[in-house]
């Protein structure tokens, strides 16, 4: 049988990066083919090339035996390829129907959209694959899982026979993942060919018929799920054994590092987005917060840091009431912070590393000259940054390069180092390993473990459930701004945690 897709010798260079290096990929018709690899292994670039969003520098592409080159997604769509993007390609203020037909509008004479035909076709597609969404809802009002369904319908609406799913499970909770997999199997049963990008190994092994592994822009292997274990795959992906988040035995003291008492934060509509949250984290303890994004975690972090006004309740840092203190005074009194978006909140990308290392600690030694905090001590800052670079393995030619020259992992190590060397007593770590490679991830985990044994009280927020379960001493679940469950990490699995996160189970009804 002629393969549905045959990519040969694909090479793509970006300034300073070889994103795809002579990549080969063969996908048979009617199969679910997983492409996996670490962040930066070149999966997304390869898919963008296949979908015509970026041209390849070298290599050939055959679809059903016919050679093709795409200069735009339009040409790929015409050839029957559809992409379900990881970051949804949806316009929030348009309706589902408008989003679906965008780019494939059935028109009457004079460019008028034939809305009747469109909604009929939408209904047919939805029925055929068991995907239901109200076509007249604004996308703005949909849940994440529903938005993904709109993305899939969009692709099918255009008559795609080959579907590319770019990390579709990254934004979903386990229950939604099952729903997605059901949809994918249904698509396959209806004759669709699916390419599925992922780096979650259990998922790949569950859904894929064939697996191709990329590492550093190269194809490493193509295997069948029956022939490999998750460990084998992991080793193929990283080239060595995969590190795991794991804490060693507990040494939790009785001193409380940070206390949140009935903390409430209101949103613009005066509704509680953080609703009477009470927490205590002792020194040497890591408290993990699980929850689907948007359930108040970000605002809770803001409340602790002081960027978000609390309308009720109080916060104590090492026994002192800091509820009305400024961000600066909280930081000076021992609050360390690893922000969830390192480029947005953590770094000044165009500033040199030594200036970045001073951020948040600019009023304290050695970054400013002691008696006179108005002046930056350049020498002190540089040598402190050198120390961070050494101790935290920040790979950079020197400390004068600007922050954007560093890879994501090294940027994160700089931030973690910056917070750690200031010896805080409480650490707030928000998604500390999001989007960084396995090596940097292992190093960040190690630093958090180290912080714990040094007696820090740590608040950890993460969407990576394995990380949460592995690192935390206690896990609480946030749902709609409330703490709905407190769990012992040694007794739960990502799956059961997922049930709490969707609000499916509550404390009165444990899983």
């Amino acid at each position, binding site marked *: 049988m002629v393969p549905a897709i045959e990519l040969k010798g694909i090479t793509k260079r*970006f300034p300073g990066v070889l994103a795809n290096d002579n990549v080969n990929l063969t996908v048979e018709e009617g199969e679910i083919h997983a492409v996996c690899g670490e962040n930066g292994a070149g999966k997304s670039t390869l898919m963008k090339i296949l979908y015509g*969003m*970026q041209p390849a520098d070298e290599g050939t592409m055959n679809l059903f035996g016919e050679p093709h080159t795409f200069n*735009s*997604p*339009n040409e790929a*769509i015409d050839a029957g390829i559809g*992409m379900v*993007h990881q970051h949804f*390609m*949806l*316009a*929030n*203020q*348009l309706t589902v129907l*408008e*989003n679906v*037909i*965008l*780019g*494939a*509008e059935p*028109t009457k004479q*004079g*460019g*008028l*959209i034939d809305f009747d035909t469109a909604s009929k076709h939408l209904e047919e597609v939805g029925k055929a694959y068991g995907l239901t969404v109200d076509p007249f809802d604004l996308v*703005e009002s949909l849940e994440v899982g529903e938005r993904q369904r709109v993305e899939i319908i*969009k692709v099918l609406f255009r008559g795609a026979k080959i579907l590319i799913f770019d990390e579709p499970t990254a934004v979903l909770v386990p229950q939604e993942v099952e729903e997605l997999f059901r949809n994918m199997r249904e698509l396959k049963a209806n004759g669709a060919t699916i390419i599925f990008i992922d780096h979650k190994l259990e998922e790949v092994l569950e859904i894929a018929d064939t697996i191709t592994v990329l590492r550093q822009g190269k194809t490493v292997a193509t295997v069948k799920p029956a022939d490999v274990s998750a460990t084998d795959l992991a080793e193929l992906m990283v080239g060595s054994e995969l590190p795991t988040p794991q804490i060693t035995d507990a040494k939790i003291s009785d001193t409380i590092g940070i206390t949140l008492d009935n903390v409430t934060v209101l949103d*613009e*509509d005066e509704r509680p987005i953080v609703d009477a949250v009470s927490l205590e984290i002792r020194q040497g303890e890591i408290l993990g917060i699980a929850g689907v994004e948007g359930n108040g975690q970000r605002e809770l972090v803001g409340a602790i840091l002081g960027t978000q006004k609390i309308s009720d309740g109080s916060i104590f840092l090492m026994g002192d009431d800091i509820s009305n203190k400024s961000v600066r005074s909280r930081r000076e009194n021992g609050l360390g912070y690893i922000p969830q978006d390192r480029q947005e909140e953590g770094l000044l990308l165009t500033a040199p590393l030594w200036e970045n290392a001073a951020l948040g600690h600019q009023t304290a030694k050695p970054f400013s000259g002691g008696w006179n905090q108005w002046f930056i001590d350049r020498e002190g800052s540089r040598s402190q940054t050198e120390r961070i670079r050494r101790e935290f393995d920040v790979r950079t030619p020197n400390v004068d390069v600007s922050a954007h020259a560093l890879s994501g992992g090294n940027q994160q190590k700089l931030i973690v180092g910056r917070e750690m060397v200031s010896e805080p007593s409480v650490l707030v770590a928000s998604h500390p390993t999001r989007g960084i490679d396995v090596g940097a991830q292992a190093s960040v985990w190690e630093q958090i473990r180290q912080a714990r044994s040094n007696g820090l009280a740590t608040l950890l927020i993460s969407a990576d459930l394995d990380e949460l379960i592995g690192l935390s001493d206690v896990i609480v679940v946030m749902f709609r701004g409330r703490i709905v469950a407190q769990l012992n990490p040694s007794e739960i699995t990502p799956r059961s945690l997922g049930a709490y996160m969707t609000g499916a189970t509550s404390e009165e009804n444990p899983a």
Partner: protein
Amino acid sequence: MNEASMIGLLTAAVSFGALLYLAALGELISEKAGNLNLGVEGMMAMGAVTGFMVALETENAWLALIVAMIVGALFALIHGLFTVVLGAEQVVSGLSLTILGIGMAAFVGKDAVGRPPGAVLAPVDWGALSDIPWVGPILFRQSPIVYFAVLLGVATSFVLTRTSTGLALRGAGESASTVDAAGHSVVKLRLGAVATGGAFAGASGAYLTLSLTPQWTEGVTAGRGWIAVALVIFGAWRPGRCAIGALLFGGLLALKTRLQTFGVDLSPILLSMIPYVLTIGVLIVISIRARNRPSSAPAALGQAYRREER
């Protein structure tokens, strides 16, 4: 206030309203596609001088209007080149366009200052309709451009909501990458919207010098382009609501020249400030009211789109 002066005021409100509406409608189209063009004032000035000069040369007011629209569109494409193609900051480019337009119009129109117009667009006589008391003079003795503006308003609304180009255009203003992935060209859509906006602003300018105040003086646009920009926000990016706003602000512009005849004893300098002060006031009120609600502004407004950004 007597009946005649009231009718006069309302008539002028409609006339000025159409002036603002044309420019605002153009800006609305541009912003719906995600491009904020603050060059309206400059494009209006270019349209005004072009219209007047062409009318002087050819004595054909309709030709003058068409040329003014083309010049407005080409002038807007300067902004389009910088912001859409080259990805420059839209606010900076738009402001430059305003300064350039005002200066260039003054330069081009140097010799036309004080000259009588070559041709004007005379008010349309609708026969019996024009003789209806109140309604006749207010609505049916206006310049043809007023009816043109109404027509464009309906057409814009229709194109935006009912056609595939309109849908793609709105999409480009909401999420450019989505539209790109859907196979529409963001560059073409945005350039088209910017050029259309320029053409509308050019028409608005030409209306000024061919009909409303048929002469050329430097600075004849007098900040009305800025009111048009404010109108788009006031109208929540909807053609219909913009029309209501245009009549309201048009009324304010008309009021300023008439307050004295109504016996208000104020310095004319203060009087001419009124529409602009009220513009600021209205925007403050709207901003305060909108603060607690999701904005109806296009989500990608003001953002350049670059495809290969990683």
